[in-house]
């Protein structure tokens, strides 16, 4: 059998020339003709009962030919991939080569492939990551948060201070004219300086229920609504009432109410345990990042352009989604960071490159270490996805049918990363 010839163009792309064997071509033509003739109408024949000669006489051979090639080329291409053990990362560019008389036809495929990496040392890397300890303060803060959730609002008869809950009406004016979104009635708000534009909360401090006051404020330069940024505004505020958040006393009774623990000491210990768990996970993540950073820097990894582009577009898409979740339009977001879409894209190229390199490296290491995902792991990953989307597991499986490979790859990548973290040698950073 004639085999295809492989030419490496550069580290990430190859060219394969695949001969089309006459036998295979004839078979493909026959199959193509059968399929086409099913729907062809020629007077005197039932559908699908047209002899090939009559069909070709009526419709010509071009249709059969192109249909046959469409079937045959992908098949030849995937056979050639197996033959050369290539891992393509993008769709191939396929092209028919002109062929001489009596020579078999040839197909040229140009495709980007995963680069072969020369793996350097990846075990026992020294990374310096700062220690994360949980302070008593953090525990107390968490406890306080729990207490706030259980707090009750009690009206107080005194001028407002920071931290009070107030009910206010306000009308905002710039140069004497009210502006969009600058007014509200019966707004309940916690009086904290950083909840409002500068000067607003402090301006209310000292007011008593029923009082009216004019407050001078200035919008910050970096305000998200660009037509307001930097402007001075006057707010006419009416304070209706002042409430104070009464917090429950932190004692064993409180612990029993908010948790399954009988004493405050036990609750504290549990909170500490959880915070420590979060801190440990964070340290692990930091070790992982540091290891990947070192590995990427230590390896020469050719990046296939198509992967780079795909990754970059994905990052851009994420930025777009994040802007939308925060309720701003993407072009507003671009304006707020002072960049055009093109500039942002350029900027993301570096990130994308690092990420692609990281992925390629992790995959190469997974290969070298023979790290695989077991059916049980896939099952539990699917269960996780099912819970997250609130769908039955079979539905998730069906929806993913085409992308099962990516689930598998994701598990392998995570396991490899865990493996690298376990093998890394940690040096405590100052």
């Amino acid at each position, binding site marked *: 059998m004639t085999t295809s010839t492989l030419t490496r163009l550069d580290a990430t792309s190859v060219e394969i020339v695949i001969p089309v064997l006459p036998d295979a071509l004839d078979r493909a033509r026959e199959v193509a003709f059968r399929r086409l003739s099913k729907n062809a109408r020629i*007077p*005197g*024949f*039932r559908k699908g*009962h047209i*002899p*090939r*000669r*009559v069909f070709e*006489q009526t419709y010509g051979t071009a249709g059969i030919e192109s249909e046959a090639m469409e079937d045959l080329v992908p098949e030849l291409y995937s056979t050639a991939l197996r033959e050369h053990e290539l891992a393509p990362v993008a769709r191939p560019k396929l092209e028919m080569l002109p062929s001489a008389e009596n020579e078999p036809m040839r197909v040229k495929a140009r495709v980007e492939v995963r680069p072969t990496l020369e793996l350097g040392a990846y075990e026992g890397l020294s990374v310096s990551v700062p220690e994360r300890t949980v302070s008593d303060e953090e525990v107390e803060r968490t406890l306080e948060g729990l207490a706030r959730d259980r707090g009750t609002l009690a009206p107080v008869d005194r001028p407002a201070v920071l931290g009070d809950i107030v009910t206010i009406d306000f009308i905002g004016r710039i140069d004497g004219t009210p502006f969009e979104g600058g007014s509200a009635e019966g707004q309940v708000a916690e009086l904290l300086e950083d909840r409002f534009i500068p000067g607003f909360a402090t301006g209310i401090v000292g007011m008593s229920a029923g009082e009216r006051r004019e407050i001078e404020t200035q919008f910050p330069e970096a305000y998200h609504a660009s037509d307001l940024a930097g402007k001075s505004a006057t707010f006419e505020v009416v304070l209706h009432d002042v409430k104070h958040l009464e917090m429950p006393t932190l004692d064993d009774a409180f612990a029993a109410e908010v948790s399954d623990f009988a004493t405050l000491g036990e609750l504290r210990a549990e909170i500490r345990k959880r915070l420590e768990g979060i801190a440990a996970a964070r340290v692990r993540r930091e070790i992982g990042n540091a290891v990947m950073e070192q590995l990427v820097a230590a390896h020469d990894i050719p990046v296939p352009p198509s992967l780079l582009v795909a990754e970059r577009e994905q990052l851009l898409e994420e930025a777009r989604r994040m802007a939308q979740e925060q309720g701003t339009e993407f072009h507003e977001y671009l304006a707020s960071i002072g960049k055009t879409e093109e500039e942002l894209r350029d900027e993301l190229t570096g990130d994308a490159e690092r990420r692609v390199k990281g992925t390629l490296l992790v995959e190469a290491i997974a290969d070298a270490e023979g790290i695989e995902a077991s059916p049980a792991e896939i099952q539990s990953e699917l269960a996780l996805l099912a819970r997250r989307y609130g769908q039955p597991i079979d539905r998730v499986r069906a929806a993913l049918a085409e992308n099962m490979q990516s689930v598998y790859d994701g598990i392998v990548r995570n396991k490899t990363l865990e493996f690298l973290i376990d093998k890394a040698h940690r040096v405590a950073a100052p």
Partner: protein
Amino acid sequence: MDARDIILSPRITEKSMANSIGHQYTFVVHPSATKTQIRHAVEEIFSVNVEKINTINVRGKARSSARRGIRTEGKQSDFKKAVVTLKAGQKIELGGINYFEQ
């Protein structure tokens, strides 16, 4: 009558193609053509020897259509069909292409 006014066209259908395996070729011929006329015409045009000829007068099928409640009755044209059996081993080629062989 000229040979080409007698033989009007080859009749290429599933049935006629099935016959051609046994050296039978089917043509649409002039409605008043006789077997003898057809024999001479085929021999002249295709330079073959005709063994036997069967002729059939085909009645056109009745067709009717209805559009906005108005029925239109019609009928496909009648024609005469001749099945020509050639001497064993002989073939007919039409414009370089033998329609009758699969």
